[in-house]
């Protein structure tokens, strides 16, 4: 579980989870860091080998554990290290977006994007934009940690 301290009586600081694929977008995030492009400190990055590793349940679980926004970033279409990975992701996430709507989670809390290894600037811009969107939306309405989730996540 992310520990982003939420300061009381101050501006709402969202907790944001970012899934980056190892080959392009994580390198892009790395470049953003190396080039010292600034972006808000609300995100935590989970590195996965390919964006198609992100199962819909990961996103749902993040929301049920109190995350306010989830961002999945992969390579550009056709650039995926594993050939067709990102196309799978596109297909999968299309259905997930519909599912989230049915669960009652605002559309803008979940984004899917492509960042290549050379796009450090774009990465920081994307994070700034996403954090801004989530801040506007406010805290996630899903009550945190219900049922036996904590146990099952281990």
């Amino acid at each position, binding site marked *: 579980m992310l520990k982003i301290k939420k300061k009381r009586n101050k501006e709402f600081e969202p907790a944001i989870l970012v899934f980056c694929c190892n080959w392009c977008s994580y390198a892009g995030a790395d470049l953003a860091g190396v080039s010292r492009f600034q972006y808000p400190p609300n995100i935590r990055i989970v590195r996965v080998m390919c964006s198609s590793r992100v*199962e*819909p*349940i990961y996103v*749902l*679980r993040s*929301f*049920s554990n109190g995350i306010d926004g989830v961002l999945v970033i992969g390579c550009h279409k056709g650039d995926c290290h594993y050939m067709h990975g990102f196309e799978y992701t596109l*297909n999968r996430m299309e*259905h*997930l977006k*519909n*599912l989230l*709507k*049915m*669960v*009652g*989670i*605002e559309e803008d809390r979940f984004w899917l994007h492509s960042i290549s290894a050379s796009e450090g600037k774009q990465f920081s811009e994307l994070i700034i934009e996403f954090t801004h969107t989530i801040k506007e939306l406010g805290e996630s*309405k*899903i*009550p945190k940690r*219900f*049922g*036996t*989730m904590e*146990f*099952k996540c281990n």
Partner: protein
Amino acid sequence: MSSYINNEIKCSNYNFQNLGVTIKNVISMANYCFACNRCVNVCPLSHLDVFFPRKLVGDLILSSLGEVLTNHNIWNCLTCGQCSIYCPMTQENLGVRIPDLILELRKASRKSKIQINRITQCETHNEIFPLISKMIANNPISPNKLEFLKGKVLKTADSGEIAYFIGCLPLMEEIFYNFKCNYTEIPITIISLLNEANIVPVVLNEKCCGHDILWGEGDTETFKKFAEYNTQLYKDAGVKIVIVGCAEGYRIWKYDYPKIVDDFDFKVFHFSEFFLKEKILEHVKFPQSSKIKVTYHDSCRMGRLGGRLYNAPRELIRQIPGVELIEMDNIKDDANCCGVATFLNCNEYSRFLRQNRINEAINTRAEYLIVSCPKCLTHFNCYLNEPSSNEEKKELRNNIKVMDLASFIGKLLFLV
């Protein structure tokens, strides 16, 4: 008796909820058993050496509850109800009703550590279903699942007397997108046929019925939230009659909601019942087609556990001209289970049960296996879609298509 039980429980590592009532219920149910062993003879799982209902009932009488729950895995039972049909001691509201007994045990013990481990082992699909149920139940924002009706010329209302409960079909469409089961064809067909008879049903953004969370996890808190939300929603819309399109929703609306909601006064119909009552199919003109042979699979939630609704769907199939209904060997009360209930326990045993049922259907030489439960639809389709290097086997499987009753009618009428 009860103090004895309490003592025993204190030593075990279980902490039961609502201890007194549940245990009294369970023990008094178990006490009816006279060990005739009929339930074991018919239970599909005891044939596979997985679960023995009589042993469980017998142990309930003789040993402490904690011991029983440690020795028997109550999450293995399919709650298919086959045993309670054969049990000579089962009567209305009396006797050993093993599915109810299992449900009580699940409710009482679900929070203990051993049982949580066992649930986790039984869960399938990464626990996506219980997770989604809990999220929907606890979410103050109401779900938005009527998107699939957009762009269709269907008339629905926001208030009125007759409501159609869609349930989780649109959700399943998104989760099992690669199975191509076309779950949303079911509501589309039902609503358009109702429209054809000049009935404009109330279709609302209700939450799930809560079947899986109740029967699969024994989670009464979440289930209560669903029950209260849905009944309140319909009450506010002035609904008197609820039409349900799936077997599990039917069982829940008809038998489980009245138990948990205080002033429940809806009349609940399965769509086949309602169509027969209103004579909807009699006025519909079916296009000419060649003869189609079909067979029908009774689902447990509409049959053994749902007031034995066997004739309405069959009658509906007979009303379609050019369709011949061939029965399988085991039907109605004896209908074999599809193998999975509530998305628990999808394993080699349940695969065997599915295989068994599909083979029975293939032996009738019917072209379609018609089901009335989305779970049966999913699991049969899953079995048929399995890759197989055995060409002969594949050929056999290609001989049969599994379809829901509503979407079958919809396909014939070109509604979907």
